[in-house]
């Protein structure tokens, strides 16, 4: 057999039916659903008189619209309540397992999948959410789908898929202190652009990726979609196996060893060909901050807001002009001189325990700047929250003046009441700085957890490398 990539191995192991010039029917091992994109799929299914083929492989969680405070009180948001009720009812009728608002394991779908060990190397995983790419960090093939496809998977446990091209992104060198997984992925998007990965599945490789812990790899894979790629993957290795061992859905004892042996066989074979390759040097990466209205509009914290006239392509120039107008920024402004109104530490990109530990190391013994209206820490899951509280991180944050909340998507997507008000500017550890993403008229600057934490202390961005804190794993 010719050498194959990780993607090709998982693809062919899941092809139920392949015919020339037709999309393949691909088997799905884990279907994750949430209250936001599933109700129409269930009603479609019901209307057509169809049933859920594998409720035992389908997992539901409430995350997008959940309140992050006063969880014990009745839901006052009627629209959100209708979403929760619909999900509960649909799960009850079909036998799909549900992590509801009050589950101790509730959290953002892309945080709890790996945390529970539902996500494993070699599996195919889909969810009606574009950040499903996160799960690829464990060597799974995972991607976001629309609601019609959610319905398709519910009915058939399969998806019709055309094979993607492959893009290998190799990050050489050693990550300097203060540089995090978030800076690596923002630098990658800055280099290849927000459509640089369109039509491709990305495999991240190289020593700087290998050196990342599991959670850092999740941060990288999470934002693959921000580069246009539906899926991002990292070949499983000892870091992956150590992360998985003992998690609730991971095989035990002898079965675990059997699983590890199989997982080891998934890595891309030497000499396997990719459709495209890109290389970066981690040593050259500086802390990243976005200045515009998509994640590709990013620069070093030591840099300045660019002049739209510096863009040669007229379409891009116009986009930069529009972005600066929306962001209310003048060309040439130093990134560290932009005053902030709020700071949000959370989202499926950066809300895991290592993110919170790193942010806590930055803020310990310090105070949130008085100019700030709000600094928010939203753990990615209730398990993360409990662990952080065990370690006293919540106390570090609240002592510094941060709010400590319950788990959910929160101000990354503003589907609950955590909304960035119009005209305000937020340093955010989330993944999208689109117009209105955190709230209508809100202005988002994406950065790493340690950069956001330091920005909360100073009221503006600072070069975290000068603080002598490490970027964790």
């Amino acid at each position: 057999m010719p050498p194959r990539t990780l993607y090709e191995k998982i693809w062919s192991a899941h092809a139920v039916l392949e015919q020339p010039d037709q999309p393949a029917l691909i088997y799905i091992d884990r279907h994750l659903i949430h209250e936001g994109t599933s109700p129409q799929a269930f009603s479609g299914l019901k209307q057509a008189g169809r049933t859920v083929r594998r409720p035992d492989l389908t997992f539901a969680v409430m995350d997008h619209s959940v309140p992050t405070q006063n969880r014990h009180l009745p839901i006052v948001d009627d629209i959100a309540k209708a979403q929760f009720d619909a999900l509960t009812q649909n799960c009850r009728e079909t036998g799909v397992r549900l992590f509801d608002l009050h589950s101790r394991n509730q959290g953002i779908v892309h945080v709890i999948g790996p945390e529970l060990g539902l996500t494993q190397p070699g599996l195919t995983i889909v969810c009606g959410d574009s950040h499903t790419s996160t799960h690829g960090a464990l060597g799974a093939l995972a991607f976001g789908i629309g609601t019609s496809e959610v319905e398709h998977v519910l009915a058939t446990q399969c998806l019709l898929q055309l094979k993607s091209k492959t893009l290998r992104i190799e990050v050489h060198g050693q990550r300097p202190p203060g540089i995090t997984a978030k800076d690596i992925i923002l630098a990658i998007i800055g280099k290849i652009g927000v459509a640089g990965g369109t039509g491709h599945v990305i495999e991240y490789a190289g020593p700087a990726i290998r050196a990342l812990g599991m959670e850092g790899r999740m941060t990288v894979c999470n934002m693959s979609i921000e580069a246009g790629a539906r899926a991002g993957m990292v070949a499983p290795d000892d870091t992956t196996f150590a992360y998985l061992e003992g998690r609730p859905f991971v095989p035990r004892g002898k079965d675990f060893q059997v699983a590890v042996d199989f997982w080891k066989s998934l890595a891309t074979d030497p000499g396997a060909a990719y459709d495209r390759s890109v290389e970066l040097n981690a040593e050259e990466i500086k802390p990243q901050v976005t200045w515009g209205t998509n994640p590709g509009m990013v620069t070093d914290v030591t840099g300045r807001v660019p002049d739209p006239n510096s863009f040669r392509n007229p379409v891009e120039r116009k986009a930069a002009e529009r972005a600066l107008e929306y962001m209310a920024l003048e060309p040439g402004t130093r990134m560290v001189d932009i005053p902030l109104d709020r700071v949000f530490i959370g989202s499926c990109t950066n809300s895991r325990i290592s993110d919170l530990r790193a942010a806590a190391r930055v803020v310990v013994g310090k105070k949130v700047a008085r100019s700030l209206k709000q600094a928010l820490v939203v753990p990615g899951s209730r398990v993360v929250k409990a662990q952080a509280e065990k370690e006293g991180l919540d106390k570090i944050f609240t002592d510094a003046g941060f709010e400590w909340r319950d788990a959910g998507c929160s101000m990354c997507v503003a589907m609950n009441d955590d909304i960035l008000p119009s005209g305000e500017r937020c340093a955010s550890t989330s993944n999208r700085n689109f117009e209105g993403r955190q709230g209508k008229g809100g202005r988002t600057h994406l950065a790493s957890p340690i950069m956001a934490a330091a920005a909360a202390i100073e009221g503006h961005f600072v070069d975290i490398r000068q603080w002598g804190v490490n970027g964790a794993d």
Partner: protein
Amino acid sequence: MQPFAQHSGLVAPLDRVNVDTDQMIPVRFCRLLTREGYGRFLFYSWRYLEGEKPNPDFVLNRPRFRGASILLARANFGCGSSREHAPWGVLDYGFRVVIAPSFADIFYNNCFKNGILPVTLRDAEVDDLFQRTEQTEGYRLTVDLEKQTIANDGLELSFAIEPSRKHALLKGLDEIGQSLQHTDKIAAFEKAHPTQAVMHDPVDVIISEPKP
């Protein structure tokens, strides 16, 4: 799904690159439980001023583009969130065709599930169409999926499309119904490659028995 064969209609130009699905349907309108009625919310923040008053500066509000059913767009159209509310909004507003130099993968895919034809043309061709649309009031195009052409008096452009997608759209196929015809193959696959999600440690999850 409604089939798509041929469509003639007024063209509206949206001269912005990287239009994301958050712009098409802002998230606060994505909390509804239905597939219908999203046309009102399409491009909401650009289209309306306070109190849902039409913003006269937004291109779709210009009287000459009223009733447009072909949207002319720029590169990487539909990037970002996988929300199918975006194509639902595009369709419900009245667009049957979107023309752009490139589309984001998930949005592109979602269009085909909803009877919208996304047409990919070369940059220069799209530039040219933008000029024609701006210069000629009432500029219309005829899009023929069977022939894979876009035409107007004297202009004919051809476009590429994946044959299986073309076939599904021409026929308005119910993909789930199609896939369910392979139930025996799916069952055989499950037998040969059993996949399970076994809980070895209890987690706090609600499990119901499916209703018969």
